[in-house]
């Protein structure tokens, strides 16, 4: 049986992906800090899809533990989905270094630390698939969330480099850039409908992109267009905008 490892398995997109891969015949390894939540998510996946699910303690910021974590997994997963992230509060982060540090470390350093290990292992065995959830926020720094955005920009560049390195080794790397995602938790919030994807929809597009070995996807194609345009705005104009 094939397995998927999901890092940061309590997020909405991660949960939706766990269901989607299980529906398609994957065993699931859920990894996150909060084990009580994982347990109930695991139970739900097992009942619905009849696939084996295991839960593992994983802390993105506890770098020392990452080697041990990877070694101790009961099965070597064919697919590793890196779904953890921390949005944080931009304004707080501007003055409170703890907050800024946590945003940067979670979204970039933590991801680089664990994926270094995964990449090494996949490279050695000559196969495997790494999926990283980055963000459209990483395409250009905006005053409203540049701490998060710059960390995600770093993560996007990391994934791009990883892809370049591992392509020849038969390892696939997929970068996912979701725009607005409407989850059950944001139900009723005023997100712009045509720009907002449901997490189930995101999961389906991730599975599809994984199957067809895409490199980079925006979970709603319209975001590709939007970000292209945002990237084209000259910095002299961009700096005056309220974004």
């Amino acid at each position, binding site marked *: 049986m094939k397995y998927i490892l999901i890092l940061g398995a309590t997020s909405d997109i991660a949960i939706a992906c766990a269901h989607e891969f299980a529906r398609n015949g994957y065993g699931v390894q859920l990894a996150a800090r909060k084990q009580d939540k994982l347990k109930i998510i695991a139970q739900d996946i097992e*009942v619905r899809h009849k696939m084996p699910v295991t839960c593992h303690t994983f802390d993105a910021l506890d770098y020392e533990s990452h080697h041990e974590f990877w070694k101790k997994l009961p099965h070597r997963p064919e697919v590793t989905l890196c779904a953890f992230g921390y949005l944080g509060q931009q304004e707080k982060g501007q003055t409170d270094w703890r907050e800024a540090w946590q945003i940067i470390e979670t979204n970039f350093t933590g991801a680089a630390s664990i994926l270094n290990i995964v990449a090494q292992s996949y490279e050695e065995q000559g196969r495997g698939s790494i999926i990283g959830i980055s963000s459209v926020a990483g395409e250009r720094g905006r005053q409203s969330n540049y701490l998060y955005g710059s960390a995600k920009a770093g993560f996007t560049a990391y994934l791009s480099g990883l892809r370049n390195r591992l392509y020849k080794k038969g390892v696939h790397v997929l970068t996912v850039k979701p725009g607005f995602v409407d989850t059950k938790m944001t139900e009723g919030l005023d997100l712009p409908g045509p720009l907002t994807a449901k997490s189930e929809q995101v999961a389906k597009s991730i599975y599809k992109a994984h199957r067809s070995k895409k490199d980079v996807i925006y979970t709603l194609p319209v975001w590709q267009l939007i970000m292209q345009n945002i990237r084209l705005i000259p910095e002299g104009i961009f700096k005056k905008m309220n974004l």
Partner: protein
Amino acid sequence: MKKKITNWSNYPVVEANLLPFRYEDELRQLLNSQQEPLITRGNGRCYGDAALGPNILSSLPFNHILSFNEQQGIIHCEAGVMLDELLELIVPKGWFLPVTPGTSFITVGGAVASDVHGKNHHKDGSFSNHIVELELMNGVGEKVRCSREEKADLFAATCGGMGLTGVITKVKFRLKKVESSFINQRSVKAKNIDEIFGLFEQNEGYTYSVAWIDCLQKGKDLGRSVLMLGEHAKREELPNRQQMHPLKVPASKKVSIPFNFPSFTLNPLSVQAFNFAYYNKMLGNEKKDIVSYDPFFYPLDSVLHWNRMYGKKGFVQYQFVLPLEQSRQGLIEILEKINSRKMGSFLAVLKLFGEQESLISFPMRGYTLALDFPIVNGLFEFLDELDDVVMKYGGRIYLTKDARMKPEAFWKGYPNAQKWVDILKKYNPDQKFNSLLAQRLNIIS
């Protein structure tokens, strides 16, 4: 942050805080941190104000399935799980919902809080009949289990209790064994009210029965209708092609009504035209076919947001039940009133309920009629008149669909109301759970 929230009939609309929870400890935190009254809302498919208030707990993310015993057909799940998700899981294993309303887009918690009924009420009773056990969370964040054996008063007050006993968190209930996912359907035309009553009573042996009724007919045609009967199809009854996959779950082919129709779309003329077409589409007096469960139980689910047909002002659904002996006379009186006012209802559904013993649930032995009315000037006064007729004959109005009845109609229609309210006082002592409906009907004052 407050936002505008409304349920299925787009009336009323309130400004409220929507507080979603995914796990028990998140719910407990919300209950402990919120000083103001709360009410739980699932998928917002109740029609009126039962799940509305200034602070609304959203159970939609709380949707884990805990276990499914495929041998005995028992499911245990959290309250936010929707019926359509359950069907996807249970139908391929040869099970079906014991009771389902006319939409699968409701949560299990909502099914309990409304104690929903379906086309098989005369055979299988309402949803609560099939519940093994419930778990609630009370106003201070404690878990409370109840069933017919354990805290029976709380159990009775929760089934049909409109969320006022606490937050329904987990439901364990029994499923119905089926051989296929198809329904053996029989439709029979009835020329008038006496014919349809006769047909209902002759066909009580069928598991499922419901009639669509044309409210605009009068005189000797009053009550012209089409009765739809159904049984779960046995494997050998299926055509060869379907015998290969007897438990197939129909793929969803859904269209959506993307915006509110202008309110003049539905008028007496268009309603008349629709009803004429519907009745005459059946050439003979009787028709038999085998259909998937989807079009049989959920004909309107294929049109997402069909409520937008009624325009921005919204509509009200009016559903009442009359005791069996009074049903004929009462229905004639009500249909005549609708007729004389040209208050045509697009959707009018008639059903004969079976016996029901319950504290606060809607069904009772007799006929129930559900009508949709777009909101126009004078409608509420007209509905008050209908209430008077319903009360005169000893009937009652369905709380899940109601947004406008006066307290007197509630207290008169539900003879156990005081008993129910006393139990609410015991389990909801600080009135932590309260809704616009509860206030409007003087249930919690």
